[in-house]
């Protein structure tokens, strides 16, 4: 193991190297490009024993990766924003064909207006594709999740693709120390890929041929079951990774100062790291506040989040995207998760950070103050709050 100073983009490139990925196809898009740029250098310099295919679009990139993975080869691509939307058809296809591809998606806002800055709308719009979604909040996690993503996705009880969602620029282009395992060190954690199925000339069959209503339903239920299995085994996989790497792992969610907290703030990605500082500030002011960092978004960690939040007096959910006409996606899930609880705390949803608007720990401290004031005054807040709007 060695420690390198890497951007999160290069951390996931190293993640693909450590995972002994054998096939990469990709199309460049800011701010993803440096991920596959580094992989092309690894492959051309023979540091990495893999095929690199250049293609004419993101749709073709994931289609090529689908072809390679279908032959039983561990494959990788990465994209962002409009690139994800362009490959959308294949995103669904990969999950329904049960191909455990790992794909980092650098979260970037959608046009118009044209923007390259962080926003979660791109991956949230692909929430229901069947991909496992993990939102990372620092460079080390970005690296770790490539290795854990292959281990989780390739598990026979899962056999599902994994999307690693990482914030544009705040992660993709920001340098930080990252501990890297060599492929040899990784082998004990990540065995060679043994596919659930693969194309085989000795036993020819068709993939995805037409199916009537008599059979389609069952395939969808099996995908749901695969997600439930992924939720059950992910924490164990994280613990195993911790043993191999010596790096502390939290599993599906990370709780920070939640035990005795009266109110809890939830967030995805880098905003969760910023909230950690806000929690310390609020604690210094005597406010009993905690943080729940939601790392795994699909399958949604219902049990863990319910246990962390029930009996609290206030829940603040920050969303970096909005389901127009309703609420932020994380808020929707948190409310749904809390519904079976006897003691449901009020949940206030703050829509923040859209299109890369900065969200600092000071901002988060003020969001909490606004939320607490509303709840203390007995106000029932049912709508999301666009707290950073210029009014």
């Amino acid at each position, binding site marked *: 193991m060695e420690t390198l100073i890497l951007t999160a983009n290069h951390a996931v490139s190293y993640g693909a190297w450590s995972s002994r990925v054998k096939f990469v196809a990709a199309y460049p898009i800011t701010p993803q490009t440096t991920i596959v740029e580094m992989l092309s250098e690894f492959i051309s310099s023979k540091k990495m024993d893999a095929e690199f295919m250049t293609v004419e679009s993101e749709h073709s990139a994931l289609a090529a990766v689908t072809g390679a993975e279908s032959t*039983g080869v561990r494959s990788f691509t990465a994209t962002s924003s409009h690139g994800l939307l362009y490959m959308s058809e294949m995103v669904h296809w990969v999950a*329904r*064909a*049960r191909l455990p591809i790992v794909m980092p998606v650098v979260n970037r806002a959608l046009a118009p207006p044209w923007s390259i800055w962080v926003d979660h709308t791109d991956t949230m719009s692909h929430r229901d594709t069947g991909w496992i979604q993990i939102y990372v909040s620092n460079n080390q996690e970005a690296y770790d999740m490539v290795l854990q993503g292959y281990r989780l996705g390739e598990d*026979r009880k899962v*056999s599902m693709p994994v999307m690693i969602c990482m914030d544009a620029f705040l992660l993709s282009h920001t340098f930080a120390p990252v501990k890297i395992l060599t492929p040899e060190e990784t082998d004990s954690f990540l065995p060679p890929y*043994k*596919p*659930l*199925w*693969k194309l085989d000339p000795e*036993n*020819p*069959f*068709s*993939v*995805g*041929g*037409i*199916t009537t209503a008599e*059979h389609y339903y*069952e*395939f969808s*239920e*099996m995908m749901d079951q695969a997600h439930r299995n992924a939720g059950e085994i992910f924490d164990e996989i994280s613990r195993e990774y911790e043993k191999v790497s010596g790096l502390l792992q939290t599993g599906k969610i990370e709780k920070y100062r939640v035990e005795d907290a009266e109110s809890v703030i939830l967030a995805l990605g880098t905003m969760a790291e910023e909230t950690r500082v806000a929690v310390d500030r609020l604690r210094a002011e005597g406010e009993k506040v905690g943080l729940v960092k939601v790392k795994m978004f699909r399958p949604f960690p219902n049990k863990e989040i319910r246990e962390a939040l029930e009996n609290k007096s206030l829940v603040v959910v920050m969303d970096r995207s909005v389901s127009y006409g309703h609420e932020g996606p994380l808020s929707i899930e948190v409310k749904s998760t809390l519904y079976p609880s006897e003691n449901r705390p009020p949940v206030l949803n703050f829509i923040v950070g859209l299109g890369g608007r900065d969200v600092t720990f000071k901002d988060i401290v003020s969001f909490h103050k606004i939320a607490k004031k509303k709840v203390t005054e007995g106000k029932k807040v049912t709508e999301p709050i666009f707290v950073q709007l210029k009014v």
Partner: protein
Amino acid sequence: MRKVEVDKEMGLKSVKEYPPAPLSKPAEGAGGKTGLWRTYRPVVDLNKCTGCRICWAYCPDRAIKLRDDGKVEVDYVWCKGCLICFHECPVKAIDKVVEEFGE
């Protein structure tokens, strides 16, 4: 690798019997008698057919059959009437006529 049992797809009774992904063995007639889809019917003139087999090679549904004399005939049970054979025949031995089922 788990053995993919795709042969018995049509008789699946429980989700436990399903293949792990939507996999299937190609089988004659799995999609129904596709001959009923035809708008045009290709008709081979055996006097002109040279037995070059170009139509046989091009047919996407294997609906061109080889006769004992080396010439070809169309299997109208499966031929969808795509007319690729009509377009490819180098000696124009294949004509197209409007299909009238139940002749």
